[in-house]
């Protein structure tokens, strides 16, 4: 479960990215966060991952109060979140396998069980035959799928993705979205930011719209 109550986020330069945000996302829900550039979508996801801290207000993620979380506890919170970042954050000097295995190494998995999980995740995103490839040799869609595999390899209860289909052509976009839907179907809470609601082909999912840092729906 993710719960925001009266959350404000003001950056040191005075820019108010989020104003009085309050919502609750239940376990297993799939939610889209939309809004124009600068609306506060990425800031909202960063608050969930404790990459940023709220200026005021309370945020509960997996029963943990992010606002009061100690810095030393943040890594353990992130291990239960699958995050797909806007800038992808791929390590280009490592193979596809080595990129995906990193979260498991961080959690201290033995090599054999980690390898099994990595191959299962790569299979799920259709990259099993490219585990030894370097990310630079992958197409844009494949690179995004690599990021998704890395996000889900640790079997997180919450999957958040910051504009995962930006810069992808429509066929890849549909492919990626279907992937998120499949994770949602097995009970994972999925939170995706996307620039405009018009891009969404699945009106049955809940949409949170942001406008200049305020929640409008």
């Amino acid at each position, binding site marked *: 479960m993710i719960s925001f109550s009266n959350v404000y986020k003001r950056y040191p330069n005075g820019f108010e990215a989020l104003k009085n945000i309050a919502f609750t996302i239940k376990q297993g829900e799939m939610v889209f966060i939309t809004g124009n550039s600068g609306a506060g979508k990425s800031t909202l996801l960063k608050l969930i991952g404790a990459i940023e801290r709220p200026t005021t207000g309370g945020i509960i993620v997996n029963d943990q109060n992010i606002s009061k979380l100690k810095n030393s506890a943040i890594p353990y919170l992130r*291990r239960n979140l699958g995050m797909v970042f806007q800038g992808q954050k791929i390590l280009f000097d490592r193979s596809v396998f080595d990129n995906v295995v990193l979260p498991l190494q961080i959690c201290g998995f033995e090599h054999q069980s980690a390898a099994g999980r990595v191959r299962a995740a790569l299979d799920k995103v259709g990259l099993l035959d490219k585990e030894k490839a370097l990310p630079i040799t992958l197409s844009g869609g494949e690179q995004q799928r690599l990021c998704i595999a890395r996000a889900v390899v640790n079997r997180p209860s919450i999957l958040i993705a910051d504009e995962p289909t930006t810069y992808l052509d429509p066929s890849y976009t549909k492919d990626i979205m279907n992937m998120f839907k499949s994770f949602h179907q097995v009970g994972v809470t999925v939170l995706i930011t996307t620039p405009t609601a018009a891009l969404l082909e699945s009106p049955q999912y809940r949409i949170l719209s942001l406008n200049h840092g305020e929640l409008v729906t």
Partner: protein
Amino acid sequence: MWLSHHWHAFFLALRRLVGSPLANLLNIIVIGVAFSLPTGVYMLLGNVQSLSGQLSGAPQLNVFLKLDTGKDAIEKLKSHLKQHPQVENFRFLPKDKALEQLKQRNGMATAINSLTRNPLPDAFIIDAKSISPETLKRLRNEMLKWPDSMHVQLDSDWMERLNALLKLGQIALLILTALLSFALIVVTFNTIRLQILTKRNEIEVSKLIGATSNFIRRPFLYFGAIQGVAGGAIAWLIVALVINLINSELINLVRLYAVDFQLHHISFEDSISLLLFSSWLGWVGAWLSVASHLWQIEP
């Protein structure tokens, strides 16, 4: 899990080490050459100490009596020395015997025969129970106060000078070790700083997906320690080679002085200490670098 993290960090450090072999090899050689200096000086001091021990034996006190000392006084002194708590053993060297011994030396017989009387005094040659310089000095001062004593010679003076020189050498060694240890720390600090800069993306991603500071820090610490231990091994090799080279020439030299001496190699304990110390210094350098740079990288 703890062991798995350490294996992962160790292999990552090894991978980084072989990832840029030339740069890392040069660093290791620099550390090795720098560390061979204090190691070499340490070995030299140890060898000189062992040589001085071989040459000197236990220091002795020679008490020369006044020329007019009578037999009764000599007997009294003998019994006094027998009961003296600081005297291990002694022997009396009468002046006639001393003259005989002097005559037997090459070139001295003619000169001694021309003398009208024996100019040598009777003497006691004394081995003290303790060889500490303080005790020996106290004993000398006591013997100087005997009414029949003319002169007391303590043959440990040159030993004291040598010991003073060795102490000076030890201080120089400490300073040299401290300076070069600092240099090793600086070299490692800089290497790790550059590594952190080039691995910035990896560190950022790792933090984003749940890596603790310890997880990120560990491969750098292992890298510093491995680089340090490799530098220590190079220093050991350099010193071992130099000792071999010197020994091959030293054999001819010491033969001329009828002394059985050659430079000792680094002992097993000292070798282990050298490797542990250089490894620890590398670890410290890496730790300082990570502590001062890692916090700057936040996702």
